[in-house]
């Protein structure tokens, strides 16, 4: 198990209560990941970042009141140290492009394993972006931006490490 000496401070933004709860509980098993706050829309996300200044922001894109892309844009200006990781169900090329253009470091689809999620968080903290395979495909079809990234290890079910 690769352990960082630092604890990565993570905030979770999603309008779905259960997802926030689920992710929070699940990520809690990792000793190097600490869930410091939750928000349910973009506005709250901005406030949260101002207040708590997390290391990594896991943020859903489609939310009421203010969507994730807009929030990311704001946060990238206000708190550029915060690494924004988009975590969403959608793989539309346009959405991906918007998120990345707004300053998201990583784009993850909500079907990755817990292990893969943890890895992506650590990578993001280290400044390394992750692009989910589906997203890559979608972009390929669109043939636009490429950011260097580490290919995602196909998520195992019981990642040990």
């Amino acid at each position, binding site marked *: 198990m690769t352990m960082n000496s630092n604890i990565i401070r993570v905030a979770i933004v999603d309008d779905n209560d259960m997802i926030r709860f*689920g992710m929070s509980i699940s990520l809690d098993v990792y000793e190097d990941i600490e869930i410091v706050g939750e928000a349910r829309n973009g506005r709250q996300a901005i406030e949260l970042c101002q207040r708590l200044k997390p290391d990594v922001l896991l943020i859903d894109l489609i939310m009421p009141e203010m969507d994730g892309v807009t929030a990311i844009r704001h946060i990238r200006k206000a708190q550029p140290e915060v690494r924004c990781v988009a975590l969403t169900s959608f793989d539309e090329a346009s959405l991906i492009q918007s998120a990345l253009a707004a300053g998201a470091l990583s784009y993850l689809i909500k079907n990755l394993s817990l292990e893969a999620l943890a890895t992506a968080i650590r990578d993001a903290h280290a400044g390394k972006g992750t692009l989910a395979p589906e997203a890559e495909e979608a972009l390929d079809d669109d043939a636009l931006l490429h950011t260097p990234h580490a290919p995602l290890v196909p998520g195992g079910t019981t990642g040990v490490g």
Partner: protein
Amino acid sequence: MPLQALTDLQEMQILHNLSLQLISEDNIQVFYEALLAAAIALTHADAGSVQMLDKNTQTLLLLSTQGFSSRMTAHFARVQATSHTPCGIALATGMRAFVDFDDPDIADDDGSFKMHLEAGYLSAQSTPLLARSGEAIGMFSTHWRTHYRPNERELQSLDLLARQAADLIERADAQTALRKSEEKYRSLFESIDAGFCVVELLFDDQQTPIDYRFLEVNPAFESQTGLHDAVGKWARDLVPGLESHWFETYGNVALTGESARFENSSDPMQRSFDVYAFRVGAAAERRVAILFNEISERKRREAITAFLAEVSDDFSRLTKPDEIMQVVGAKIGKFLNLTRCHFIEVDDITHTAVITHDWHLKGLLDISGSQIYRIADFFSDELYRAARAGDMVVIHNALSDPRISAPENVLALDICAFILVPIIKDGHWRFVVSISNPVPREWRPDEIELMRELAARIWLRLERARAEETARQIEQRRLMAIEAAGIGDWDFNPGTGDIYWSPRMYELHGLPNGIKITLDMIVSLAHPDDGPLVLEAHNQAMTGANGGKYIGHYRVTHPDGQVHWLESHGDVVFEKRSGQRIPVRVMGTVMDITARKQVEGIELDRRVLAEALRDTAEELGSTLKLQDVLEHALRSAHELIRFDAGYIVLSAQDVMTHFQGEALISREEQMLTQWHRQHGTLSELPLYQLGNQRRKVILINDARQLKQTLPLRSLKALFLLPIATAKDIFGYMVLINRTHNDFGETDIAALQAFAYQLTTAINNAQLFVQAQELAALKERQQFARDLHDAVSQTLFTASLMTESLPKLWRQRSNEIPELLIDINRLIRGAQAEMRTLLLELRPANLETTPLKRLLEQLIDALRGRKHTDIVLMFEGEPVLPQPVHMVVYRIAQEALNNITKHAHADKAWVMVRGDKGFLELLIQDNGAGFALDEAKTGLGLQMMRERAHEIDALLNVDSRIGEGTRVRLQWPKGSQG
């Protein structure tokens, strides 16, 4: 009374007392006795009597005696005035007479002297009582037992007494007579029907009569004048506005004493009188007696007769119907003092009426015009029937009369009271003469009678005038038409066979002017196909068929070879002879209709075409289904041209997409379809190339060209209709004819118009299909998205949590049970969402799944998304109609969605109570709530309200910020269950 010597004074006293007595005494008998007593006293007599003359019998009646025995009283009760007794003499001469009863020289005819002597009286005197006129009215006598002669003084006293007595008696008589006559007069005037009164005139300083006062009136006075309690009142007070001529006349009678006999009327009294006025009493009393009869009724009758005569004059003077109505209407109005008189034409088949003429006072509403009124709007059925039967309708007050069906309608025309005389002709109600008043009015019998009289006369006159006018117009028109249209005029006498032709007739037939014409000639002139037909029509008319009228069309050939179509109108005139209708004359006109015939032909075609196109438009427009459009199109085309077979081919990107054949044999259809497919792009085919170039309907009827069009044999003609706009080509319609190629410009034009319709219809159908597909696609996409979103998120979360389990087991195993519960919730939630969404895809299942099940599913899904503690309480077994079931589900779904998305509640309740035909749903949470007045979108409140309204259910949405939201649905509205 004993004889006494009287002094002068005593005598005077006696006379004075007597006078007093006489004056004050009513009873004449007492007076006579007092008179006698005075006479006896004055003459120192021993006895006496008073006798009065009865003029009628010329006898003296003994009225008072003193000192007479009963025998004497009886004897002298009645004495002939002409007797030679001293009384008789005194009476005859008017002078006192003395007599000695024992005078042997005087004859004692009746033995009265002897009687006196026997009674002990020797002498007597009789003093006559003389009236002012000198006439003797009676006497008094005094008797002495001695031969006594009164001295001078006594005689003077006697004379004085006689004078007084006579005066008093005369006066008493006069008074009695007066009283008697007054009684007589009174009884007369009490009983007569005529009015009687006595008035006292009042004059001013110039002797001008100002007024008069009623002093007495007889019982008939009131009914004759209509004045109550007139006695004591002044005429001007009783009758304000009484005309001056009354005062003048009576004043004159009072001043001059000349009686007046006259007839006059008084407007304020609304009566006319026949009067005899005479002065009564002394001139200074200024009293006039008036004897009179009210003659208003008579006067009115006279006025009406005069009026009718006047109207008759108008009738003979005026000729135009309008004039007649106008003038007579005005006269009636003025005569009867009306505000309105009108004439109404009635149509008793449609039960409507039109007010054709309305005379009215200036300033009032004019109710004439072309407005058609329904009679039922004014009259009750009963009244209508009565009018229809010819009964006069007399309404005094439309507001209170139950025979009026709708008083407000009547009042709207400014009418409240009216008389309506219906005129029935030939069993139909045709006409009404009517008068009206805007306020209630008691119509008098004579007014009603007048209207009845008038109405009949007016109608007759009007009919006549109209007939005359129409006849004039007809004649005028005829002449005009003949002149204008170059119409020929002809006249045929069936009896003689003579025919008259106007010069134009000769022209029309191409014959030299003036030659003799016979019926046979005309028939032979006409085209052999036409002549017999016209003759037949003529003969038919002669028997009276079709009212003796006929029209005939025939061709004649002019010398220059030109064929002309002529139209002849004939009108047979009949006369009744010995009970039969004999045709005596046939009049007619002829005109040249060659040009018209041609135009008619074209017109007919055009009309048929227009109608056909309208039908096709309807057909094509009636459906958006492409298949139907194609079928309809081919069927409709038959209405426009005759074709043997045809087809429509639709293309997209130049490739065939649809083929629809009509009347093709299956082999042909197969072949054609294949032929189209073979060629891939349609524009390669020369036929369609041509169509694409021209974009207009093309007719190909040249045999050689036809061969290059379709692989079909024996084509005689082909129509190609490109179904295209300037921009797009949708396809082509092809119609073929195998029998003839006799088509022209009109057919092409018709098909062109049709092609436009078809293009539009097909375009619409295709757009519709696209729209439907798009909608379906969108819907599926939305579902897919929803499915993906909801379920995948939930499962993702569940998988994360499951993945964390092993680590958690090592770290904090006591937390695992709760985590497992949560994982279960998520999975169950996901399942529920899946099921819900699948139900949405198959609505039939939604309808059949019981409500409880559906709600459980929704709640499971909610639990899967939130940590809300949600409870379902379901009571009863609701049996709901389909629409209600669906609406309840949708509303519950929406409410729960809102809780999921917005409420952030930790507790929620879903309570349902229901039965057969009743349901109550309550969904409550303790979450954030929202401000009701800030019309928030995205909460589906609008949808919920509309849905609730659809099923007539009560929906309450209650929410307070920070306290939560409550949604309550109750069906049906107002039930308590």
